[in-house]
């Protein structure tokens, strides 16, 4: 396997440097580096970021391979500049036993495009009644550290309490999908004037905010760590800001789509815009951007949720919730946060790599590029603007809300474990990537 010499890249702190990677690590930084044996990559004008880490990905395998597989989702991730993803547990069978999480991890290792870290279910079958085998998953070969019933809320307050306590014993974090189920029965979109006009069942902000308020208090009471998934409302931001001001051990994520899109899109009845939690008002979008900028919200996570064409090309009420987001995440963050002056590139590095790796305890990821840091690197061209289209997607599903939208930036190359998964903006062939992954594993 070749070493790579990345020439003239710009780091997040604006320094320009060559980067020599080999043996799975950054071997050297500096200007005018040379190494005859290395493959040279011209990175002048490109931004070099530590590989992106997604804390919230749906890979759909096992069970829903029609929408995505571990392999295809890994390819989508690499295309978007990610080097690690955390795979949600709502597969079929549910990832609630050591066997399933070990299988997902093994499929990810074999595919080799990214580090795949399985998330374990909090409750058996995501049913919200009995704890799943959290200890068995934590001590399995997959060493699960993030537990979530995402797709469903851990609604029963007693089970939530016990889950927070039990997971604490294994050094893990509970990632809550905050949605009071009784307040959102049949919900189709954000509850407000537009849902009133369209006559669609509303998903009220309070259904999210009430659960977050309960959970931050519970987590503090039992001394456990809580992560809040896909925060979508201005009120939720206020609750989290309050919890953090009290010193509670709480982190939160926002999705790219909640930073950009608003509920107005629902009036198109285009089911690509149907997502859970739903798109909200522009006031919410503004509050989420401000919260990400001031650190109230810690990270951006994609909630990449692939669905087959059939699940989306139908009437609104029957369409599935969810959007793919891995391939577009960095561009949307640039558009909403950097081009608006709310975040610098060091902040982007923090919210899309360093912090998600820290929250999920993802080893070998999320470290600032420096000599000895892992060779997990994304090269990004922030100067281009392009119309985002199907050709930019690399997963199995095309339910992206950004198709035919102008988005800034493009991932030019991704390096994972020292080998390339994306070069020249194109995915490296899957057999070559698998071969390199095998070589790294046996190193």
């Amino acid at each position, binding site marked *: 396997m070749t070493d790579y010499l990345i020439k003239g890249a710009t780091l997040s702190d604006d320094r320009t440097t060559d980067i020599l990677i080999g043996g799975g690590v950054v071997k050297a930084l500096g200007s005018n580096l040379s190494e005859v044996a290395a493959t040279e990559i011209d990175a002048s004008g490109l931004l070099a970021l530590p590989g992106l880490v997604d804390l919230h990905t749906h890979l759909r395998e096992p069970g829903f391979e029609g929408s995505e597989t571990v392999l295809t989702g890994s390819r989508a991730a690499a295309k978007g500049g990610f080097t690690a993803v955390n795979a949600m547990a709502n597969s079929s069978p549910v990832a609630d036993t050591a066997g399933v999480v070990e299988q997902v991890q093994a499929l990810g290792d074999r595919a080799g495009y990214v580090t795949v870290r399985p998330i374990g279910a909090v409750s058996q079958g995501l049913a919200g009644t009995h704890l799943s085998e959290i200890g068995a998953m934590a001590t399995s070969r997959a060493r699960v550290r993030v537990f979530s019933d995402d797709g469903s809320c851990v609604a029963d307050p007693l089970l939530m309490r016990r889950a927070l306590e039990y997971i*604490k014993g294994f050094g893990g974090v509970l990632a809550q999908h905050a949605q009071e189920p009784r307040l959102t029965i049949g919900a189709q979109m954000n509850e407000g004037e537009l849902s009133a006009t369209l006559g669609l069942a509303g998903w009220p902000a309070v259904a999210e905010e009430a659960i977050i308020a309960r959970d931050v208090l519970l987590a503090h009471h039992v001394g456990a760590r809580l992560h809040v998934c896909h925060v979508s409302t201005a009120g939720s931001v206020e609750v989290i800001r309050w919890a953090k001001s009290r010193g509670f051990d709480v982190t939160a994520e926002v999705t790219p789509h909640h930073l950009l899109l608003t509920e107005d899109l629902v009036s198109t009845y285009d089911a690509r815009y149907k997502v859970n939690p739903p798109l909200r008002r522009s006031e919410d979008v503004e509050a989420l951007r401000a919260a990400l900028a001031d650190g109230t919200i810690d990270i951006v996570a994609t909630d990449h949720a692939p669905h087959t064409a059939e699940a989306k090309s139908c009437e609104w009420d029957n369409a599935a919730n969810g959007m793919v987001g891995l391939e577009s995440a960095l561009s949307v963050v640039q558009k909403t946060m950097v081009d608006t002056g709310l975040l610098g590139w060091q902040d982007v590095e923090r919210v899309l790599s360093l912090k998600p790796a820290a929250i999920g305890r993802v080893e070998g990821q999320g470290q600032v590029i420096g000599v000895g840091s892992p060779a997990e690197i994304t090269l990004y061209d922030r100067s281009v603007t392009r119309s985002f289209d199907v050709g930019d997607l690399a997963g199995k599903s095309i339910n992206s809300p950004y198709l035919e939208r102008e988005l800034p930036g493009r991932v030019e190359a991704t390096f994972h474990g020292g080998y390339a998964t994306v070069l020249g903006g194109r995915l490296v062939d899957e057999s070559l990537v698998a071969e390199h992954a095998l070589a790294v594993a046996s190193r």
Partner: protein
Amino acid sequence: MVNAGDGTHEHPTQALLDAFTMRRRLHGLASRGQDLDGVRVLIVGDILHSRVARSNAWLLKTLGAEVAFVAPPTLIPNGVAAFGVDVHYDLDEALAAVRPDVVMMLRIQQERMNAAFFPNGREYARSWGLSAERFRGLGEKTLVMHPGPMNRGLEISDEAADSPQSTVLEQVTNGVAVRMAVLYLTLAAANQGAL
């Protein structure tokens, strides 16, 4: 009045018989007048619902022992700091850190199994049970105690329960003597007007 064990609060005579059993084992015939100075005791399991654990924590500490708890966090009471003991969540780490002279296993009651304190008995046994393998890792003189009745295969393995290091049957025998003594001191001593 003597408390013979009230709910999940206290069980003083159990603590007395446990302390007596430890002193007998550790000091033999010379145990009279000896306390438990520096003896390391690890209490394992359902601390939350255990009157045995509560009474033992108070008495053993009074006698100079170093007491630690280990259990899943769901089975440790909120506010455990009131006991002033070390608390662990991982049994293997606790065994390594405490290097106990005494391991006291607590009974897991059947009704806890369906109340979401832990996923199921298999996971409990794997994580917090005194398996044969964990038992073999103990020091040769480490005592294994259990207030009974035992759930063999859940919180304790046969190998541990039936080993020479186990004090389970002595605890039962000593319980009779200790309770006789308590009754004697309570009734007879009161009549004499002095303890």
